[in-house]
């Protein structure tokens, strides 16, 4: 599958101010480090629930989410935590969520990457069912269009989720209404253990865009700038009333579907090839060094910032109390005011 994408060398003259580029590097390294540390904690039995590794796909996630403005909205899946962090989620609260604490974005009601912060940064609180947020993105985009808001909705799902009927309904509907929405498919080669060719019988997902009447492009998820530029184009087009677009960003899921999965089904050679040549983090770091945007010292400094952020997040999470048992039945109806008042913090920190 993915290997047929030629690696496009990063543009000689840089497409973005150096601070933005450095910020990309920070996000890429944060994502990678977070992913590795969380997996270690999971293996040690120190992390409850599930983890869905985005390793190897950081270029896709940072690239697409960076193309959004603050007022734009993001509708991700379980795999897209890096995109959510890029859109502005606070790592501390993200980690509190993983540990089921009251300071997580869902107040302990959901775990792992089933997270979002609509009021804060317009990220939809992720649900498992695939791709259940796609139709919701249609509604947000329609609201922008109706109000002339010049805002854009972006939804992400995986290669496997494209086999689901909701994917079709959403793309079709968005084309009929020419909605300001960008459909992203994070094609990481597998749906759990299922390879692309058991999910669809065409070489690329991008080419399906034509059958809806929208532009589609396939990019290399190993190259964050290529992803960013394609996403930027699609976002600008949507914002200017040009309607929806489809972006297929190709990478490989380096780890198993979730923390427990050894992913024996992933061809070793394929994995090696991706890790050796298409590592979005290392590739971009080397590019910035080559371009003189950052020095070795800067990189070390960034890495140190990343590790500090993680450690602070970890501390914050474990120090945050569990929700109060008595609050379990609150917050289902708007009128009980649970979500507009301070939640109880009496759940202790040692439960479970």
């Amino acid at each position, binding site marked *: 599958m993915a290997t047929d994408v030629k690696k496009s060398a990063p543009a000689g003259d840089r497409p973005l101010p150096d601070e933005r580029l450095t910020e990309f590097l920070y996000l890429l390294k944060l994502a990678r480090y977070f992913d590795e540390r969380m997996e270690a904690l999971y293996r040690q039995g120190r992390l409850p629930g599930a983890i869905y590794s985005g390793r190897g796909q950081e270029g896709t996630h940072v690239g697409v989410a960076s193309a959004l403005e603050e007022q734009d909205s993001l509708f991700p899946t379980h795999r897209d935590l890096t995109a959510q962090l890029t859109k502005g989620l606070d790592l501390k609260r993200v980690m509190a969520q993983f540990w089921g604490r009251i300071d997580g974005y869902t107040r302990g009601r959901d775990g792992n990457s089933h997270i979002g912060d609509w009021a804060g940064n317009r990220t939809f609180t992720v649900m498992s069912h695939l791709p*259940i947020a796609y139709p*919701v993105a249609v*509604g947000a985009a329609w609201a922008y269009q*109706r109000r002339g808001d010049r805002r854009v909705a972006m939804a992400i799902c995986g290669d496997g989720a494209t086999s689901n*009927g*909701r994917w079709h309904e959403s793309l079709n509907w968005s084309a009929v209404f020419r909605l300001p929405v960008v459909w992203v498919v994070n094609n990481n080669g597998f749906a759990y253990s299922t390879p692309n060719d058991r999910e669809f019988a065409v070489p690329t997902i991008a080419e399906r865009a034509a059958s809806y009447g929208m532009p589609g492009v396939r990019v290399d998820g190993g190259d964050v700038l290529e992803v960013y530029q394609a996403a930027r184009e699609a976002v600008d087009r949507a914002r200017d009333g040009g309607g929806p677009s489809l972006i297929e960003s190709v990478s490989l899921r380096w780890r198993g579907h979730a923390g427990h999965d050894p992913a024996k089904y992933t061809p070793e050679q394929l994995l090696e090839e991706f890790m050796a040549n298409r590592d979005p983090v290392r590739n971009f770091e080397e590019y910035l060094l080559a371009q003189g945007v950052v020095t070795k010292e800067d990189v070390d400094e960034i890495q140190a910032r990343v590790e500090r952020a993680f450690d602070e997040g970890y501390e914050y999470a474990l120090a945050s109390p569990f929700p109060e048992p008595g609050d379990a039945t609150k*917050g289902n109806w708007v*009128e009980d005011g649970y979500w507009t008042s301070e939640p109880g913090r009496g759940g202790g920190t040692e439960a479970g």
Partner: protein
Amino acid sequence: MTAAKAKAVEAGAAGHGAEPRGKRTEDGQATYLIAIAEALWEEMERDERVYLLGEDIGDYGGAFKVTEGFLDRFGPDRVVDTPIAEETIVGMSVGSAMEGLRPVAEFQYADFMSSGFDEITTVLSRYHYRSGVPLPVVLRGPSGGGVRASSFHSINPEPWFAHAGGIKVLCPAFPADAKGLLKSAVRDDNPVLFLEHKWIYRRIKEQVPEEPDFLIPIGQANVRREGDDVTIVTYGAMVHKALEAADALAQRDVSTEVVDLRTVYPLDEETVLRSIEKTSRAVVLSESYRFVGIGAEVSAVIAEKAFEHLDAPVVRVSPPNLPVPFSPTLEDAFLPQVSDIEAAVERLSAW
């Protein structure tokens, strides 16, 4: 009504909304259909965030003509014809509600709510509890049988959606209640499922208030008829059958109280229990299926919370969990009839 008229009306009720929606009578009476249209019209006039979406609701005015004339008045931005994609009709409602709009989505028949089931029960019903984001979404559509429309145009889906837990479920039986409850639904900040029984649409007329702020509160049952011997707890089209039975029973000196739930979720337990305390006997009547239906819940509540007051078993009258059959002989055998209700009440009053 003459037989011919009856046929025509039946056709109309079966979704064959050829006839225009119609108007109030001189003396201000409105059908259920008109009352529902008025509620939508008034709420759209009141709040420009309110908009309608659904299949064929614009130029055509909807399969039952509920939205006839709305497109001309409110334009295509607020009366949106959609593709045949129920999952996305719900998703569109959720997403636009998240951005501050107040969608009212029409399902051409409540039967097709099953085609949007996942977005309704997974997204719409559960999102607020997990995120704190209010979702002021109304889903509405024609439900119910008795109109010879067979299995796919006669369903009563309220048990499925009442079970979901995050959606209020309304099943009015009268035009005024329909209007007042639908207006409350549109103003509610939570998801609401509003089921319009198609048998009632053009059959039941009454005086309906015209004040723009006439509201019926969600979650309040109504004692439609006072009585001392036996309580019938019911809702929707069956309320009319219950009242018919109560009249007949009165001839035989059985005094029947009829409680119209109006809202099935959240359930007004208090009104139900107060009635049982008085009569000590309960018939729970529903057009929705018996097994794990609304009637099961009402019976369970009575059995748990009114046990001390019960002088007789809590009897359910409801159809089997089977596809609603087409043939008149079968549908009549399938649906609770007035005679079934009378028999159940008499059995209890004789207890």
